[in-house]
């Protein structure tokens, strides 16, 4: 199962991600969110091995606007909407009860909760601020006059892309497209295979021998 052709998707190329967090800051500023609020787009740094056999991979993630939107399915007040017109998953904060059920359902840990206890997350810069995407007209591409998503706009390495699936698919490598068609990441996001640390990517996916000293508190 996969997204409709005109539904927006994210694309991530870990080979081009330099782990700089520009996406996180850009997102925060575009949506006028406090520095200490949970990030809608996070950058994590996963490492393994002992010096000098040390490896590290940066991972930038946000809401992926899943074609099957597990969060939408569990949201009791229908506050989460998977939009038919562009596939963007928005939140109606006037309906949200703050039950956090969506956070459990989300495979990417995307929902965040502010001081009010209401859910907010990436809206692909359809609108601005928490809940800003709700009720907006159909997402337009930058060519049509729509905003470039903040994270894409300031990705120093050009590692993040977003757009209608049909457009994004034209920009990805054959390998990534093939993997996507085969159901990688359950068709929710298109990801380039990691070149230099392919083995590490496999082991992270499989949960094999890994050392995450860096993650330790």
């Amino acid at each position, binding site marked *: 199962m996969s997204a409709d052709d005109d539904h927006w998707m994210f694309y991530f190329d870990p080979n081009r991600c330099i782990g700089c967090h520009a996406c996180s800051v850009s997102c925060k500023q575009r949506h006028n969110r406090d520095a200490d609020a949970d990030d809608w787009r996070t950058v*994590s740094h996963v490492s393994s091995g002992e010096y000098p056999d040390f490896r590290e*991979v940066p*991972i930038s993630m946000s809401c992926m606007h899943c074609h099957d939107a597990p969060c939408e399915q569990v949201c009791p007040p229908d506050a989460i909407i998977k939009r038919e017109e562009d596939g963007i998953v928005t939140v109606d904060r006037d309906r949200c009860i703050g039950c*956090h059920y969506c956070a459990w359902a989300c*495979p990417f*840990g995307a929902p965040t909760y502010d001081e009010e206890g209401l859910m907010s997350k990436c809206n692909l810069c359809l609108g601005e601020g928490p809940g800003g995407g709700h009720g907006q007209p159909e997402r337009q591409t930058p060519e049509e006059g729509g905003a470039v998503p903040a994270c894409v706009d300031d990705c120093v390495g050009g590692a993040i892309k977003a757009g209608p699936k049909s457009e994004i698919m034209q920009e990805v490598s054959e390998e990534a497209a093939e993997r996507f068609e085969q159901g990688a990441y*359950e068709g929710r996001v298109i990801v380039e295979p990691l070149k230099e640390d*392919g083995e590490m990517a496999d082991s992270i996916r499989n*949960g094999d021998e890994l050392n*995450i000293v860096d993650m330790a508190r």
Partner: protein
Amino acid sequence: MSTTISVLSAALAAAGNSEVIWHPADYWDLSIPVYLFLAVVAGGAYLTGASACLIRSLRGKGACCLETEIARWGFLVAIAAAAGAGLAVLSHLAVIYRAILFPIYLTNFDSWITIGTWILVLLSLFAVVCLLLQLFGEHAASDEGASLFPRTIVAWVSPVLLETIDGLVDRVRPPMSVFAGLHLLGSLFALGTIYTGFELAIVDTVPLWNDPVIIPALFLTSGVAAGIGATLALTMLFEREIGPVFAGYALTVSLLSAVSLALLYYGWILLAASDAPAAAASYATLTDGWYYVGAWLVVLGFVAPMIIGLVIGLATFADRLSPTLERVGGPALIGSFGLLLVGGLLFRILLLLAAAQNPLVVIG
């Protein structure tokens, strides 16, 4: 805390590396396991009340009997537990009024929270109606028993009010067939509290929960057992003599505990055998430190009522209740039910605290 980190960490923690510190996902606080538990306890208590009414009519007894006491305590516990569950879940929500206006706001009937809200609310309504019918009216007015304490409260407020309610209840008291239908429907909602299990079981991202059979079944058996146990324990505080009715319920609790234990064991085996990273993380958590102690307490909470209920139940039916057993039987049963309550709650708390999300890490 960054949720992504927790997702990742859970995955990496699965490697079992001793240097790994696992970060539990913390979307829910402890009010949720309390809610999940009390909802089923309410169901179990309702079932106890309704079944007591059924037994009473099967045995052709009048209003003034042990069954009536059990029924009243059962409905009382059901209402209290449902109220407790409701308060617990509301305390966790951000916008409470939207939850209270659930018929307007909770529109997604694919969500187990919506379904569950209706089940819990309707169960509460049935319990209230059943309790009123048992608590007020001519029969109740002439009855005696600790479970009648709400009458005393009403009388204290206003003796006239009590009379009015008694009269009202007698006037609307339905015929036997409707009564049966009422209990049957209420019992369906009581069994419907199995939804609490589905609420967790459908969460794909948490392997610890994501079993559509074991988790709901366990939630039902353990919760219903606790509901029966709580009702029985209250009744026995005032009615110490162990008769066949008590024995029957004790055996039921014993059986439900045994089934729970079996399900728990089966679930544990599955968890241990799972190669999903987050499952391994959960397993690692549950076998470490205080979590491990807690896990054994859960087991004890099932084992104790299973054995004690079995022994006392069988002894009663075989009419071989020794004086000693008769003397310690009541307290032992009450104690084991207490453990059952603790274990049932702890079970859900551990399920929450040991939950690790299966990551979908975008790593290339």
